């Protein structure tokens, strides 16, 4: 037999196929090289870095406040999650605590972004597998939430609504009403999506038993979020290391059993319901009060290691004299993680007392999940690779940073 493909010395006809970085089903610019035996994937190698913008390095030359809008560009589908993750890390470093109302508002927007993200995931995932209708249905509901984001902060995707020590501004009663109407309407819509695909035999055949990763393997690969919970590991930072108002609301952490594409899908669908529940509880319990901590740094905090003291400041604080240098941030380092829709998003910040982080490192779930693709795609068919990529809900903005 003639040698075929790259290995081509034996009778196995192996072919190396480049999938991406411009493939529409790879959700951005993920590139996979697939070693194929017929239609079977023998080896799958993910390549990342096509969307690298150096956010971690940029952060070293921006003030703590200035980094915040950059974090929008990590997981641009659910940017609030990144904002809050970053703000919490800085707050823990600075020793600030957001007022209670701000905590509740943040929890609300966090869950709104989770719903947005899961809706977009469901839309594109279903579209990849071939269910076109779900796509537009999901976008219909997502639009409602994006409109709310636009009302409260002026942007729909890259919102920058949270601030270090609180939020940008309070939500008006009309916004809260609109949100309340959404939470009452939304469970019915989830049922609609499920009517379309949940029991559909094509959907089941394309997802069940595909891209299986057992619990043990999932933990070893460092998976988090619904991708891990689909394998039956109950791990959710909102419950296990609560932040903001998550310790004051009740919700379940749905888990799967088989660790296949279908179970991950089920987990996310349940999470939609739980998010809706959390928003409802937060709306009911929303306390009155401030929205920004009094000791939160100013938006125009200085980049250098000291504040330029103006006379009014030394009047207000007798211990500081005019012209004294005050460190802007405490020295130290911190790792703080939140549960974003994709998994565990961690921020590691190192401070040397100046107004900018000395080093920032982002632990992005999508990056870790991209690595596990190699494992999940082994032995699958090419068409299943698409389903698997969809099921880990990868966002390259976060993966490549």
């Amino acid at each position, binding site marked *: 037999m003639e040698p075929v493909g790259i290995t081509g010395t034996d009778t196995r006809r192996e072919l190396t196929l480049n999938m991406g970085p411009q493939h529409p089903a790879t959700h951005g610019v993920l590139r996979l090289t697939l070693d194929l035996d017929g239609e079977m994937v023998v080896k799958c190698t993910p390549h990342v870095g096509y969307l690298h913008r150096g956010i971690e390095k940029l952060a070293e030359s*921006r*003030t703590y*406040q*200035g*980094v*915040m*809008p*950059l974090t*929008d*560009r990590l997981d641009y589908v659910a940017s609030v999650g990144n904002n809050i993750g970053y703000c919490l890390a800085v707050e823990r470093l600075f020793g600030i605590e957001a007022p209670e*109302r701000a905590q509740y508002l943040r929890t609300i927007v966090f869950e709104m972004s989770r719903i947005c993200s899961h809706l977009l995931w469901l839309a594109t995932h279903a579209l990849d597998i071939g269910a076109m*209708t779900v796509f*537009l*249905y999901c976008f*219909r509901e997502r*639009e409602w939430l994006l*409109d709310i984001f*636009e*009302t409260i*902060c*002026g*942007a729909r995707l*890259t919102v*920058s609504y949270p601030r270090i020590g609180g939020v*940008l*501004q*309070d*939500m*008006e009663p009309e916004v809260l009403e609109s949100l309340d109407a959404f939470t009452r309407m939304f469970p019915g819509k989830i049922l*609609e999506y499920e*009517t*379309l*695909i*949940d*029991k*559909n*035999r094509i959907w089941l055949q394309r997802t069940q038993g595909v891209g299986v990763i057992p619990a043990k393997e999932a933990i070893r690969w460092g998976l988090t979020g619904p991708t891990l919970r689909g394998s039956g590991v109950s791990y959710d930072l909102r419950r296990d290391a609560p932040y903001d108002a998550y310790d004051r609301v009740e919700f379940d952490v749905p888990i799967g059993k088989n660790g296949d594409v279908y179970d991950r899908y089920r987990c996310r669908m349940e999470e939609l319901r739980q998010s809706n529940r959390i928003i409802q509880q937060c709306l009911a319990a929303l306390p009155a009060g*401030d*929205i*920004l901590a*009094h000791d939160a740094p*100013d*938006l*125009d905090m200085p980049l250098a290691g000291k504040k330029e003291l103006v006379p009014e400041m030394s009047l207000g604080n007798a211990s500081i004299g005019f012209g004294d240098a005050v460190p802007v941030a405490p020295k130290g380092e911190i790792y703080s993680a939140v549960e974003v829709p994709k998994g565990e998003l961690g921020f590691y910040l190192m401070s040397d007392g100046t107004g900018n982080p000395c080093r920032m490192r982002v632990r992005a779930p999508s990056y870790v999940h991209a690595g596990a693709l190699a494992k999940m795609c082994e032995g699958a068919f090419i068409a299943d690779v698409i389903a698997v990529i969809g099921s880990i809900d990868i966002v390259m903005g976060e993966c490549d940073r």
Partner: protein
Amino acid sequence: MRRRVPDFVRKILFVEILKGLALTFRTMLKPPVTRQYPRERRDPKPGFRGQHAFVRNPETNREKCVACQKCATVCPSRCISIRYETDEHGVRHLTKYEIDALRCIFCGYCESVCPVCAIVLTETYEYASYSREGFVYDRERLLHNWDRFAAQLKRPAYFNMFWRPAGADVKRLAVVRRLQQPVPVRQTPDAGIAGTREPRAGQGQAPTQGDR
């Protein structure tokens, strides 16, 4: 879950697929939720972070900027550049103000820190240009942006929510921002509407040349 119909009957009759199709057909009869974009435009919400503009001060008919440089300092993408001169009384006079909108990330920090409510992000979201220079906004262009925006504003007065965010601690705001009233806008029909094409470089409006 109801289990009255045996599983194999459901399978043969394609029950789940028929249910899905029923939903699709029901939805087909509802009014469409999509917009036919160039013909139907959606109004952005007040406070939308769109194209930059200098608020035209009704008293002086010029921008209000006092060249304090706060916006340039706080801008995360460093896309604002400011030059000023100081006269004999120590008053700063703006000589150059430029925003490179291609680098801007529309975070809204500039309008949040401006102590005199001079720079705003207007609700204009259609501002394509044929050249890179068309996205470098200098003082005249920023004022022109304001006129263009004000002309099509459907409200009688403009107030930017970033000037005094709801629930914010007023004591932390600069004095002008504490007292800032909504800016009355005069609808001038000849100022062009949002969405009309920007002039090509070299035609009509002098294109702003980014000096380097």
